[in-house]
């Protein structure tokens, strides 16, 4: 997908594309030499990136520093930068806090995020397949409509949605945060874009000639081709479902929360012990940090691909 987009190709014209193919021939290791800015960046680049990385990491370290101390640590004027030994006991205090219901929150977060991610991936691939590869009346306008829905803020529908779910008796139920998130406009758009580029029409024709039904064609041709994009969409959806706060905070019961809602309860006491709050923050972040450690590369390349390129 790093090939020049249509826009750049048009701006360049045929001639320029040809020259770029000649001048930027890949070297022996398959890299494209960068003629001007490529050679070797100086210390300034690494220093700036180092500062950025340090400021990205620092809050994690800070929460561990405070989270491993005790209630007095934060008031210590000569704060030692070496973590204390109380992290496990602070974490245990979070887990055992009856107001927080940690295990329940963890389970709710894992269950709802996984279900939402799986559902969004499946339905987005299905709809993306239809928009990208099947012909039907009104497809263009329906796709425009899908994209337009992305611009509508969540707050606009929150009041009636709450009334709707309380009519159904679903307030306080985890289903109330799962059901509205089962599909996503971004997902449909993303899969449409990807499938359009990655599946040759001949493959679909071949499947049809072999007598495959429309759905079978989707299962045997579309689904396997969509796998890389589906993995990224799944990751993104999982992360944003996991981090979602506004709607779960409104609709969920305090005794049956998701992790962000549970975290918010840690701070609601009149006296706030930050060593316990920040231990809880770190504890609730560990699952996502693990996910990032294993799949961060995918997430990065996903963002890189999803960007609007000039």
């Amino acid at each position: 997908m790093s090939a020049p987009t249509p826009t750049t190709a048009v701006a360049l014209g045929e001639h320029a594309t040809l020259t770029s193919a000649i001048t930027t021939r890949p070297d022996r290791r398959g890299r494209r030499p960068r003629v001007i800015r490529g050679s070797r960046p100086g210390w300034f680049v690494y220093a700036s990136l180092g500062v950025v990385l340090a400021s990205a990491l620092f809050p994690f370290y800070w929460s561990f520093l405070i989270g491993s101390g005790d209630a007095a640590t934060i008031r210590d004027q000569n704060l030692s930068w070496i973590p204390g030994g109380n992290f496990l006991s602070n974490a245990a205090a979070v887990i055992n806090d009856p107001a927080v219901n940690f295990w329940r929150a963890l389970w709710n977060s894992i269950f709802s995020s996984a279900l939402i991610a799986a559902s969004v991936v499946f339905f987005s691939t299905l709809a993306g397949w239809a928009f990208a590869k099947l012909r039907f009346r009104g497809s263009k306008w329906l796709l425009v409509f899908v994209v337009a829905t992305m611009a509508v803020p969540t707050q606009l529908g929150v009041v009636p949605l709450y009334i709707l779910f309380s009519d159904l008796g679903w307030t306080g139920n985890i289903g109330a945060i799962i059901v509205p998130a089962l599909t996503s406009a971004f997902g449909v758009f993303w899969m449409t874009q990807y499938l359009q580029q990655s599946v040759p029409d001949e493959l679909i024709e071949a499947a049809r000639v072999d007598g495959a039904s429309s759905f079978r064609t989707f299962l045997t041709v579309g689904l396997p081709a969509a796998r890389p994009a589906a993995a990224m969409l799944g990751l993104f959806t999982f992360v944003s479902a996991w981090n979602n706060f506004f709607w779960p905070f409104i609709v969920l019961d305090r005794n049956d929360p998701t992790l962000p809602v549970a975290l918010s309860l840690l701070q609601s006491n009149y006296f706030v012990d930050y060593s316990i709050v920040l231990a809880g923050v770190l504890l609730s972040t560990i699952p996502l940090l693990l996910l990032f450690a294993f799949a961060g590369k995918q997430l990065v390349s996903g963002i890189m691909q999803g960007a609007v390129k000039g």
Partner: protein
Amino acid sequence: MPEAPARRSREPRRVGFGHRLSRWDLKLSPYLYISPFFILFLVTGLFPIAYTAVISFMDWDLVRNTGTFIGFDQYAYVLSQPKFWIALRNTFSIFLLSSVPQLLLAIFIAAMLDQNIRAKTFWRMGVLLPYVMAPVAVALIFSNMFGDQYGLVNTFLTGLGLPAVPWHSNAFASHLAIATMVNFRWTGYNTLILLAAMQAIPRDYYEAAAIDGAGRFRQFFSITVPSLRPTLIFVIITSTIGGLQIFDEPRMYDQFGVGGANSQWLTITLYLYDIGWGQWNFGRAAALAWILFLIILAIGVLNLLVTRRLVRDEGSRTDLTPRQRRAAARAARAELATARTATEPATTTTEATR
């Protein structure tokens, strides 16, 4: 031509059940595939939006779960509240303090990452790391660091001999602290989006510019920034929509979650939550939701116009004004269309029947 007689001798095809089934399959399945999205959007998206409008004209009774029509009174009430205007000011202040430095920083970091650095993936992952953290978690960490009495930032400032900043009592200081949380989480994400766009810029542009004697800064402002235009518009619009809806960070900035004793960091969404689920007045909350939507819409359009003017399009470096360019394009299209219908009518008809 050996095939022609063979074809003629074949029996006429019978349209069997299987064939008809597969034709229906072809016709209907696309609609079936896209229907989950549309059905769910109808129920959990479109219906609530329309119904918000209805509720906003009502005095909603929670017990009977219905309302009486009162026209624009809820809008008038919300607009007459000083708290609403404070919330509006706070929202804009936080939004500007977060999106402007964030985008400038993101462009800078992206330009650094766009160099031929070692361990590319490592740096990219490091930059994105804050993005996976829940905003609530980020808010809790930073509200601790920005503590008035024992916060890290104030300890640092007083260590330098500077006065401590009242991060929670001063409105602007609280906006700065909340904006820092937003910037922490989103800068890396925007960096990667901008980086992707930068990598799509053909390297020969820079080559040519260097031959013409342009320095790095000149190259950056004359090639990189104009080429980023569509991406910048995208990033600005998304951060506007997100920034004007900010809730998690101000909500978690202190333990009371009401936006400060004097509404120093009360935002519109926080106010919406307070009206709806603090005061249980759904009619007013719905009116506020619509006001917020209209504001977002207006700012979005304004953003689009301003960005279009400020950042030049890479393809538009001609003496023609946009209007002249459009007129020329129209004329060319019309000419092409007449030429086509005159010379190859067969092509157009087949296209029409497809």
